[in-house]
């Protein structure tokens, strides 16, 4: 059985009348890339800040590496790397100096630190920008620097709070690849985002948060199985009678159909060969059709079905 790196039990955090975390529970095992997914204000950052002992909380317990977390547990803090939502670097220090400074908050050995700093620079692809000051860097490069400052000391647990906000696609891909590489190197990662595609792409297990609660937890496959929608098929049809629409609705595994703006959308709750059956029906009934799209459910569909609202609402 893998070691529990993070254990959160019954965590309650209030900001005045606002209940930010409502008896929140979470366990993260060693070697996971754990995704905390939820819309803005769902409690992701509050959870992270409580985990780091930056925020006091009203009730509950937090353990890291099997030990109760507290602000003065510096030996625990040394094992954690944090990439905050906002870029947190010194504007007056170069890329190299910034990484060296933050690495130095954890690593005292000069030789080892130098090696780690060089590796971090290489890792985030900032070799050509070592001597540049942060204000001269683009948003994407700045984010990469932010990440390098958080991971240079090779922590066992890396917490990344929305590290790709306002990042260009190229940098985003680089960051996501980097996270997977860190995980391969042995780090356990907590990744918070409201971008479901990212979480879906890299996370081995996901908790979906809303209103301070974990509303679903599991692998992405397990989460998708929690909802009714198994497949969504969209077919371009210029004219479709109500009779044909009703017949299609009665095909196996179909639980809902919508016809709007010359698009027929068919929702299946599982099953195989759904597309073939629909195309056979259209062919047999000489119904002409255009483009056909088949989509598997996303985490957004999971969130939508569980909460009744979009992730980015």
């Amino acid at each position, binding site marked *: 059985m893998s070691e529990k790196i993070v254990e959160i039990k019954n965590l309650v955090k209030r*900001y005045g009348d606002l209940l930010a975390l409502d008896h929140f529970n979470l366990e993260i095992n060693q070697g996971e890339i754990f995704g905390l997914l939820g819309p803005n204000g769902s409690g992701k950052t509050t959870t992270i*800040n409580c985990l*780091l*002992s*930056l*925020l*006091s909380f009203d009730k509950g317990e937090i353990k890291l590496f099997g030990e109760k977390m507290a*602000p*003065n547990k*510096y*030996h625990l*803090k*040394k094992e*954690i790397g*944090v990439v*905050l*939502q*906002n*870029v*947190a*670097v*010194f*504007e*007056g*220090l170069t890329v190299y*100096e910034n990484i*060296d*400074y*933050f690495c*130095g*908050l*954890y690593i005292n050995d000069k030789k080892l630190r130098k090696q780690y700093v060089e590796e971090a620079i290489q890792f985030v692809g900032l070799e050509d920008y070592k001597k540049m*000051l942060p204000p001269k860097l683009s948003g994407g490069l700045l984010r990469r620097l932010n990440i390098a*400052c*958080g991971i240079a000391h090779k922590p066992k647990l890396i917490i990344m709070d929305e590290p790709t906000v306002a990042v260009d696609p190229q940098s985003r891909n680089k960051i996501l690849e980097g996270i997977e590489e860190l995980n391969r190197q042995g780090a356990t990662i907590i990744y918070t985002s409201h971008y479901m595609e990212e979480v879906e792409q890299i996370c081995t297990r996901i908790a979906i948060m809303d209103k301070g609660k974990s509303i679903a937890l599991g692998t992405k496959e397990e989460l998708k199985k929690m909802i009714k929608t198994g497949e969504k098929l969209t077919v371009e049809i210029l004219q479709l009678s109500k009779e044909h629409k009703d017949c299609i609705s009665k095909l196996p595994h179909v639980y809902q159909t919508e016809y709007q703006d010359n698009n027929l959308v068919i929702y299946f709750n599982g099953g195989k060969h759904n597309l073939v059956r629909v195309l056979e029906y259209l062919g047999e009934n000489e119904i002409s059709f255009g483009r056909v799209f088949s989509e598997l459910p996303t985490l957004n569909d999971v969130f939508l079905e569980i909460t009744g609202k979009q992730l980015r609402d």
Partner: protein
Amino acid sequence: MVRHIKYRIINFARDWGLLFWILVFPIVLGTLFKVSFGGYMENEEKFESIAIAYVEMENGDKNFSTVLEELSKEEGMLQLKRTDKSEAEKLLEEEKIKGIYRNDEEITLTIKEEGVYETILKTILDQYEQKKGIIEEIATENPTKLQYVVKDLADSGDYIKQKSMSNGNMDAMMNYFYALIAMACMYGVFVGGENVKHLKANVSPLAARRTISGTTKFKLIFSDFIASFFVQSVVLILALLYLVCVLKVDFGSQLGLVFLTTIVGGLIGISQGMLVYAITGKFNENIRQGVAISISMLESFLSGLMVGNMKNVVEQKMPILNDLNPAALISDALYSLNVYSDYKRFTQNIVTMLVMAAVFWIISYMLVRREKYASI
């Protein structure tokens, strides 16, 4: 620790906005002062004897006459003219004298306007009234020792003169430079403020990142403070060197102590900045900066940056303000170096500044050391 301090110093040194306020601005202001007051400073007269008329009536106190004679001799503080009442009033009206002592059944002082000289005259009379009993007693019981008592009073009068000189506008132009240095020291609030911005997790993400690191908060606070003190000291020394070497401002013969005063002043500026930012931590940067600037400018104003004799006015109306105003303490310490032959007052100012800096620092530390917050 050394590496922390090194990087913090580098970061300060590359902050051009900060350097403008703590280094360039005082230098520019000093240059403007020199350009504006240069001529006055060269023509500045040293302390003049205070011309007074003395009208002694038949039943007047003879001892007072002796004291005035002494004070007229001692460094010529008073320029005494014995005359009658009408002549004295005429001289006062024509502003040839600063006041009239009339020694009748009681001693009175008549002045035409309020000012430093008039204050000195009034203080001499007050001092005499306080010691009158002792003088009379000695005159009766041991007349041979009277001269020592009068000498003591004269020394006391000399002290009053010097005290008044330091607080007044006898050397008004230099007061502006003392206040300028005080202002430069008080601009340490920006440096101290920067420290807190990078230490309080509920103020900036950078502070949050440092707070959750594996380094103790004390180490972070202390290394930041050392770095900021180093930067502020270097900046102040550069500014002072510019005033002394380029503008040729004469700070007297004890330049080493002038530098010491400035460095201690910088220490209190940083500590005050830390305190202001620690207290106003929940507000946004504009408010924090506004409060810090307002306080340092008010202190500088009260120490005489804009109005040369402001410190004197404060001394008369609310002396405790001068005792609590770090900028006034700095300018007074600088002035006392030039005025007094001993270091009593200078030491008093320096010790007060050090105590204030320590108090500010300790309170700031208590407010900043926290690692856990109710909200961020």
